[in-house]
Each structure stands twice: as structure tokens, then as C-alpha cells.
């Protein structure tokens, strides 16, 4: 099974970069020829380009919800965003539409996509570090991703 761990976000925009920081830490702690850890700041079609050909994809991103607490971590599936799938965007399409497009065009699409989203506090100010609340959530998010990986890729020996 080929798995992709994809941290998404902007690493110099405070909490926006939390997904990339989590992915870096996962890469430090997990090593398997079947698992690729990557980062991207892209959405929509570029995201589609990144995930084609993998069996399983784990995406880590920042999110802001109406009643969320900074640092809270959500484990989600793409379907959780289906309410938004037909909406347009200034330059891209959302994840669900990108996935549907891939299926429509018979691309080799992942059978399983899991999204870990970390509640962000500040996504407007340029800064390399996350806010303290989000910084503190990183180890827990890394643990959740590793658990997910270990379930599919048990350590050898």
C-alpha cells in the first residue's frame, strides 16, 4: 500500500503552517518505503495532482470553525465537506470537487483519505511560529497521524 502524508498550508503565516510542521515531525519519526511525506501550499487541482497514484492519503491542514478552540484537532473524511462541494472559488476548486473530477476522468485515486485539521487562531500575520495554543497541539496531532500510519503500515520485526 502506497501512502502519502501531505502537510498543507503556508509555513510563514502563523497557524496556517501547522499542517506542514506536523508533517515534518511525522517524517522525523516514521520511516517506511511505502510512505511518502510531502508538503504543499496548493489547493484544488494541484492537490489532485499530488494525490493521484496513492492508495491512502493523510492530509494535515489548518481549519477555523465558528466555535472552535485553538489547538483542537479534528479527524475528518472528505465527505465532511460535501456541503461545500459545488461552490466555486476565485482560482481553484475544493477538495471534494477535485476528488470527483479525478474519479470522473478515471485517474488512479486514493481509496482512503483522512484529514487531520487543527483549529487555527491566527492565519493573517506573517510569522514562522504558530501561536502557543496551536504549537502545543502539534505533538498530539503527530501522534494521531502516526497511529493512523501504524495501523496501515505496522512496524516490521
Amino acid at each position, binding site marked *: 500500500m502506497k501512502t502519502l502524508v501531505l502537510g498543507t*498550508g503556508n509555513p510563514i503565516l502563523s497557524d496556517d503552517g501547522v499542517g506542514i510542521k506536523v508533517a515534518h515531525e511525522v517524517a522525523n519519526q516514521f520511516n517506511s518505503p511505502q510512505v511518502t511525506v510531502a508538503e504543499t501550499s496548493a489547493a484544488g487541482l494541484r492537490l489532485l495532482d499530488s494525490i493521484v497514484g496513492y492508495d491512502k492519503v493523510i492530509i494535515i491542514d*489548518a481549519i477555523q*470553525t465558528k466555535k472552535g478552540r485553538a489547538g483542537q484537532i479534528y479527524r*475528518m473524511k472528505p465527505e465532511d465537506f460535501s456541503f461545500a462541494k459545488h461552490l466555486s472559488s476565485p482560482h*481553484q476548486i475544493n477538495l471534494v470537487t477535485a476528488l470527483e473530477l479525478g474519479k470522473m476522468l478515471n485517474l488512479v485515486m486514493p481509496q482512503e483519505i483522512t484529514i487531520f485539521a487543527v483549529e487555527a487562531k491566527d492565519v493573517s500575520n506573517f510569522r514562522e511560529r504558530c501561536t502557543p495554543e496551536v504549537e502545543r497541539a502539534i505533538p498530539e496531532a503527530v501522534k494521531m497521524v502516526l497511529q493512523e500510519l501504524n495501523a496501515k503500515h505496522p512496524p516490521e520485526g
Partner: protein
Amino acid sequence: MKKIMIDPITRLEGHGKIAIFLNDDGGVANTYFQVPELRGFEKFSEGRPAEDMPQITQRICGVCPEAHHMASTKALDALFHVEPTSTARKLRELLYSAFFVTDHTTHFYILAAPDFVMGPDAPPAERNILGVIAKVGLELGGAVIKTRHDNHWVIQTIGGRPIHPCFGLPGGVSKAINEEERAKIEEIAKSSVEFGKLSLKVFDDVVLKNKEYLDMVLSDTFTHRTYYMGLVDENNKVNFYDGKVRVVDPEGKEFCKYAPRDYLEHLAEHVEPWTYLKFPYLKKVGWKGFVDGKDSGVYRCTPQSRLNAADGMATPLAQEEYEKMYSTLGGKPAHYTLATHWARLIELLYAAERMVELVRDPEITSPDIRTIPTATPDEGIGIVEAPRGTLTHHYITDERGIIKKCNLIVGTTNNHAAISMSIKKAAVDLIKPGKEITEGLLNRIEMAWRPYDLCLACATHSLPGQAPMEVTIYDAQGNELKKLSQGI
């Protein structure tokens, strides 16, 4: 298992809004378009080595990192007083042309095509790329994906990384390409030319052969007579990577042509109390408010504007299409905002043709890719055409090359005043006393700003991945009458 209800908001909260104020009669008195602005970049960059800027600035935007990388690299050439080698210039332009192919493809098929293929009043559930492919055919869908995928390979091969290139250095680039890579890029370039031709045929079939759409393109609702800006080469042909900035007036006459280092002599920025984002205008004409015409310093830089500001295209097929477009639109300059979609496809074809020229150049595989800088850095300005407008990077450093001051004018900012005007004009024409305000209004207003291919901060990646828009309509007393929104 506990079910978590996700109720995402976005970073547009409090910012990304269109407010429409009505007068006593129920007609439109004014509109305000507010976009989000990320804060503190200038401060963030101070104290950093200038050589890091091509890596840092491309993180500003998730839509056009390659454009920032290139403008920044050119600013470093100027800062370190170094001329890149001929091969380095060609490799940069080759990568940049591949980027234009991918970016213009995305915009046309994802954004523009749904309105025309499905119809501007089609329900949002159908008016998207999935609907377009279902109607136009899977083969075209496959070609869209393949063209983007192949050209991303080109960007990665030349630039060293997918999405965020790491090859731009003052005086050149960090790596050469070999013959095997060159041959593969040539195949991709040729296939991109075919894709460009196919896309123009789609436009011809879907838009130009439909009288209703052509009338809409030519309608006053989507027309503004402004100044136009774009980079041109030594023959005044469109160039994305290098050249001088040329501005033509609303009659198409050259107003000015300047080297990047002189941009501050020609541009100034107007500030409004209701938005963080500034409004650049032509200094020598002056800011006269949100109005078009020769006396107003408002200018546009979009694909249509670049074609207006130039005397033609530097490649043969694109030139043919250029002539056809102006003959159909009734001459130059064309003031029709919706025709920007057509111009974008002509630029796509040009970018692909330019790739073929560059990749066949005998110098392209030369190892002579860098001039080592030896002068003391002080100040540098670099300009490229980003897909959505002229992009300027300006750095001032100390003698060690540490950034003391940084100023950027990004593509969308140039068009800020024009976007606001386009939205107002659409709103004025669409909202009439006694006429019901419907969801369809949202899309018609979107159609007024969509050709500008806005590069909003929110267009990067954040979940759930689509950019929200909210239109609020207020009566003459300031009471909220109706709110239309998507993705909020």
C-alpha cells in the same frame, strides 16, 4: 463515536465582502468590495538575507508562487548589479512559460468555462468544472489534467521542486538541464501548443458562436474605458518575463513606457478608509475616484490589458488569434472585461509557442547558467507579468545584503480600483427598483470580477477549500435588506 459538527468559517470573516447600498428609489447608490489582506510581510522580511527572498516571497500566495519567485529573482539581479547569463535567462523564461500554461488553463476551465458552457444562470450545482466536462466531453477533461500535470513536471525539472521552485539566484539559476530533459520538455511544449489551439476552438464554439454570449461580452454592463498596462519586449510585443512596462491610454495611444527601476515615478497609491488594500493609479494622470476615462489614473493589467498595451504577440499562432480577436471586438484597445477570458487563451497559446522556441534554442542545455555577483548590494527592483497582472518586487538592503525595506505591488492590487468599478457597474445594471434580488445576482456580480482572476489570500488552501463571498444589500437608511452568500 462522538460526531463532531464542523462549521467552518474562513479568513474572509469581516473582510471579504461586497456591500451594496441602495438609494431612496431602490437603485444602487454605491458598492464596496473588501478583500482580505495578509499582514506584516514587510516587517517579516526585514533583517533577512536578500537571497532568501525568492524562497520567502513565493509563500505569500498559494496561487502564483512561481511569479513571486521570478520577480524576486529579477529584483536580486538588480540588487547585486549582475546580468544573468543568456542560458539562465532562457531557462527562467521557459519555466515561467510552463507556469503560464498551467495557470491560464486552470482559470479558464475551472472559472470561466462554467459560466459559458453551463450558462450564467445555471444552478451552482451544475455550474462547475464537473458540469463542463460532462457536457464538453471526458477527452477534454483528460487534456486539461494532462497539460497541467506535464507542465508541472517542466516546472519541477527546471525549478528543482514542484510548486515552489528553488532555482532563482542573483545572476542566474542553480542548475542546468540535460538533453534528455530538454527532449521531454519539447514534447510537452508541442502538446501544449495543440492544447492552446483546442482551447481557443472551445471558446469559439461555445462563446463566439452564441449570439447571446457575444452580446453579453460586448455589453456596457461589462465595459470600462481605462488605461492598460503590460510588459513588452523591444518590439512592443507581449512578454511575461522581461522588458519594459508600457501603458496605453483608453484610445490605445502609448502613454508611457518605463524600465522597472522607474516604477515609482509612474505609480502612486490611493487609500480608502474602508479597506486595508491600496489602490494604485497612474501618478501623472492622478486619482479622480472610481471612474474610467482618460482623465482618471485608474489602469488595468490583465491578459486583455497586456494585449491592449502591446503591438502584438511574438509568436505566429498567437499573433493570428490576436488579430482575429481585435477584428471581432471592433479594434484596439478592447474595453470589454469579459473578453479577458479570450485574451487569456491567446496568452496560453503564446506561452506554449514560446516554450517550443526556447527549448529548441541551442543554448538551453549549456552549463553556463550563472554570473557570480561581485558588486555590493544596495537596491533592486524586479518586474514580471504574473498571470493576473504586473508584479513588482522592490528591495533595499545594507551593504551585506540584509533587507532593510521591501515593497511589493502584486497583480490583483493593480486592478483593485477597476475591480471595484466593475462590481459597481454590474450591480447598478442588475439591481433595479421593484426588481427582485435573486441568487442569480450573485453569479452575475461574480462574472464582473471573475475575469480579473483575483488572487485573494483565501485562495490558497484553507479548508474547506473554496473561497467565500458575501453580498449584502442595504437600503438608503443602512438597514440590511438581503444577504446572499456562498461558502460562509
